[in-house]
C-alpha cells in the first residue's frame, strides 16, 4: 500500500489504533457486516443497476455459467432426479431475475456442457438429456451440442 514508510514503520501502529477503537466500540475488526448497515448501501445502489440492458446480458451469462457448474456437480455427485435438478435450476435462475429458463437455448447448451464437465459417458449424457427433455428432440439436440463442446 502506498503509505509513507516514515509514518508507518510497521503495521503495528495501525493495528494498535484499530484495536483501541474496536475495543471501545466492540465493532468487528474482521469483515463487513451486512445485516443492518451494508445492506442499505447495496439496496440503494442496486435498483438502478438491475434495470440496465448490460446488466441483463451479465445476468444471463452468469446464469448460464452457474447452470453449467450446478449441472456438473449435481451429476458428479450421482444425482439423477429430474425434479430436484429442475428445481435447482429454477432457484439459480430466479436469483438472476429469470423465471422462464427453458426459453433460452443457452440454458440447454449450458446444461450439456455441465454434463461434459461431469465426465460422464455419451450414453449416460444421452439418457439424462432424453429424460430432461421429455420428448422434445430440439432440446435433446441442444443438450448434446453443449456436451459435445466439452469433448
Amino acid at each position, binding site marked *: 500500500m502506498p503509505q509513507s514508510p516514515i509514518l508507518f514503520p510497521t503495521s503495528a501502529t495501525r493495528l494498535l*489504533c484499530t484495536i483501541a477503537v474496536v475495543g471501545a466500540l466492540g465493532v468487528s475488526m474482521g*469483515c463487513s457486516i451486512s445485516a443492518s*448497515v451494508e445492506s442499505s448501501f447495496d439496496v440503494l445502489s442496486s*435498483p438502478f443497476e*438491475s434495470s440496465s*440492458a448490460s446488466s441483463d446480458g451479465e445476468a444471463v451469462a452468469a446464469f448460464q455459467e452457474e447452470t453449467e457448474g450446478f449441472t456438473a*456437480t449435481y451429476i458428479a455427485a450421482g444425482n439423477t*432426479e429430474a425434479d430436484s435438478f429442475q428445481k435447482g435450476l429454477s432457484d439459480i435462475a430466479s436469483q438472476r431475475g429469470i423465471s*422462464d429458463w427453458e426459453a433460452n437455448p443457452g440454458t440447454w447448451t449450458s446444461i450439456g456442457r455441465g454434463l461434459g464437465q461431469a465426465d460422464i459417458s455419451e450414453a449416460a449424457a444421452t439418457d439424462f438429456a432424453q429424460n430432461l427433455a421429455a420428448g422434445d428432440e430440439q432440446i435433446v439436440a441442444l443438450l448434446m451440442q453443449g456436451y459435445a463442446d466439452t469433448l
Partner: protein
Amino acid sequence: MRPAPAGRLRWVIGCLAVFWLPLVHSAEAPDAVGVSQERVFEYLYIDANEDRSSGGHTAVRIDNDVFHFLFKNDYLTMARATWAEFQLSYRGYQNRSIYSTRLEISDATHDLLRASFLQRFLAQSRQLKILQDTRHDVALLQAIEQAAPSKMELPGLGFFAAPTRGVTNGRYREIQEAIATAHGKDHLQNLRRELQHQLSSMPVEALAASRRDFTKATLPGAHYPFNQRYADLVAGMRAIDVIAAGAALSEKSLALSLAADSQAPLSTDQRRALQSAGAGLRQRLVALSASPRPDWGVAFLLGLARLEAIRLSLESDRWVFIDALADDASIVEVGDRMRRFIPRLRSDAEALWAEARSSWMQQDGWHEGRYAAMEIAHANWLELSRIESGGAQWRIHATRYVPRGLGPPGQLPKPDRIAEDAPLLLATMQQSQQEAAALASEQMGYKLLTRNCVSELFTTIDLALARSLIARGEPVNRETLQQETRRRLGYMFTPNPIPYVSSDQVRDHWRVAEARELLSLRRLYARSAYEADSELATLLRESNTLTSSVYQRNDKDSFFIFFTDGNAMLRPPLGLVNLTAALGASLVGAVQFPFDGGKALKSGLRGALFSLPELGFQNIRKGSSTWLAPELLNAAVAETGAP
C-alpha cells in the same frame, strides 16, 4: 519469488495504474458476456470505515465477478457481484478505496480458481435454501393441520384475484385455444386432475439434511422438499383455474400502476412492440403449460400476469405493469435528510425507465430479461414519485428479482399422508429444522479469528489446489499443498484474519503482476477537481463535510468535519478539529437527548471515538453517501476514458 521489503515498496508505488471503471452501463456491446473479456484474478483489500469493519474487508475479483464473504443473518455468507456493482457499492456509496493485487497466474490456474469460487457460491446458495426449506416445511404443515390458509402465502397465488371454479368469462380464450391446439382440447382439464391426484398422494417427509450437505467442498444432496412440492402443485392448479375462470389481475398486482398519475399515451411503435411481445409471450405460455418442470405453474402465473398487463397497456393506451415491488422488497424509511435526495433520485429513475423502454424496443418479440428490466425500472420510477409526493417507506429490491406473486391459497388441501400422521410428521420436521440450523451454525457461523472474510477466501483457494492434486492422483497433505501453492501462486503462508494484513501477505508471498490503489469516488472527484483548476479554494471546499460538493451528511455517519482519508500528515491537526467538534456535538446531543432519544449524542460520541486514530496519523472513518452525485460518477467515467 519473494521480493525484499524496500524493493516491494518502490515496485508497488511504481505499479499504480489508471483504473478503468465501466460503471453501470458499459460503452461496449450491451449483451457482451461480462463487461470485460480480460482474464484477471485480483485479491482486493477494501479500506475500513466506521462500523462496517474497522479492519477493512477482502474479496477476490475473477474477471468481471467479485466474490466475497459477508456476515448476514447470523451466518458468514458468500456474495457474488459484478465488478461494476462492487465498486459502486464500496468505492461509491461507502466511500472506501480498494487496494487491488493482480496475481500472475496461468490460464489453467485461473480456471481452477474460478471454478472453485463458483462451486462454493452455488453450494452455499443451496445450503441456505435448505435452511429456509426446513423452516417453511414446518410452517406449511402447521397451517395445513390447523386449516389456516390465511397464515400462508404461496408463490404465484397473489397475481390474480381468486378464481371461482365453474365460472368463466372468456378473458383468456385466445390462450386457452392455443393450448388446446398445441396439446389437445382436454389438456388443461386432464392436467388439473393429475395435479389434484399428485397432491393427495404426495410424499410428506422431513428434509433430512446431513453434515455432508453443509460442507464447503460439495453441492448439497438433491432435495425437493415438501413445502416446495406442495406449493408447485397448488400453483399449477391455480394457473389452470385462473385460465378457466378468466380471473383478473389482483389489486395487489396493479396497485402501483393504478396509483400513478397520468402518463403519456403509447406511441405507434410502442404499441406494435407490445403486440409482438404479447404474441411471443403467448407462445411461451403454451409451451409452459406442457413443461415437465415441476414449478411450471408459478412461471406460468407470472407470465400470464405479464400478458394481461400487456393487454391492459394496449387497452388503456398507457404503460401498465404488475407491481414488481409487491413482495420481498426492502423497506427504507425516508427521513428528512434522505428526502432532500429524492427529487434527483426520481429524475435518475425516470431516465433509467426511458432507457429500459428504448432498449426493449430494439428487440422484437418476447424477451423476458428486457421486459423485466422495464417492469422494475417503471416500478422504481413510480415508487420514487410516490415518495416525492410524501410517502415515507421506500420499497427497493437489492438484487435482480423475479416477482413471486405471494398470495393466500384460499384453502389448503390436505395430502392423505398428513391426514394419517400429522403429529409425527410435525415432530420430525421440527427436529430436521433444528438439526439443519445446528449444522449451518457449525459450518457457516462467523468466528472472528478462524472463519471470517479472509479465511474463507483462502479456504476456497485451498479447495481449488486440493482438487487439482486429486485430479492428478496425488495425495493432499501439507507438503503437497505447499508445492502446489508454490507452483501456481507463490509461497504458502498462514493468512492473517485482519484484512489489510492479509493483503500485505499476498503481496509479499505470491507472484504479483500489478498492484494498484483505486481511490474512493469522493477522493477521485476531489483529486480531479483540484487538478482541473489547481485552486486552493477547491482543495479546501472538498476537504470537509460542510462545504463538499459531493458529500451529504446522513444518519449513518458519525459526526465529523474533515475527511482524513487523504494526506496522512494532516491527520493529527484535522483529527483534533474532528475530535473537538464531535465532543461539542455530544454536549449538544446530551441536551437533545429527551427529544431525539440520544441519536445526536450517539453520533457525537462515535465521532469522537473515530477521531482518536486520526491523532495517531491513522484513518478509519470515510463518511458514506446515500446518493451519488453525478459529479462522482462523471469523475469515474472520465477515469475510464469512456464517453
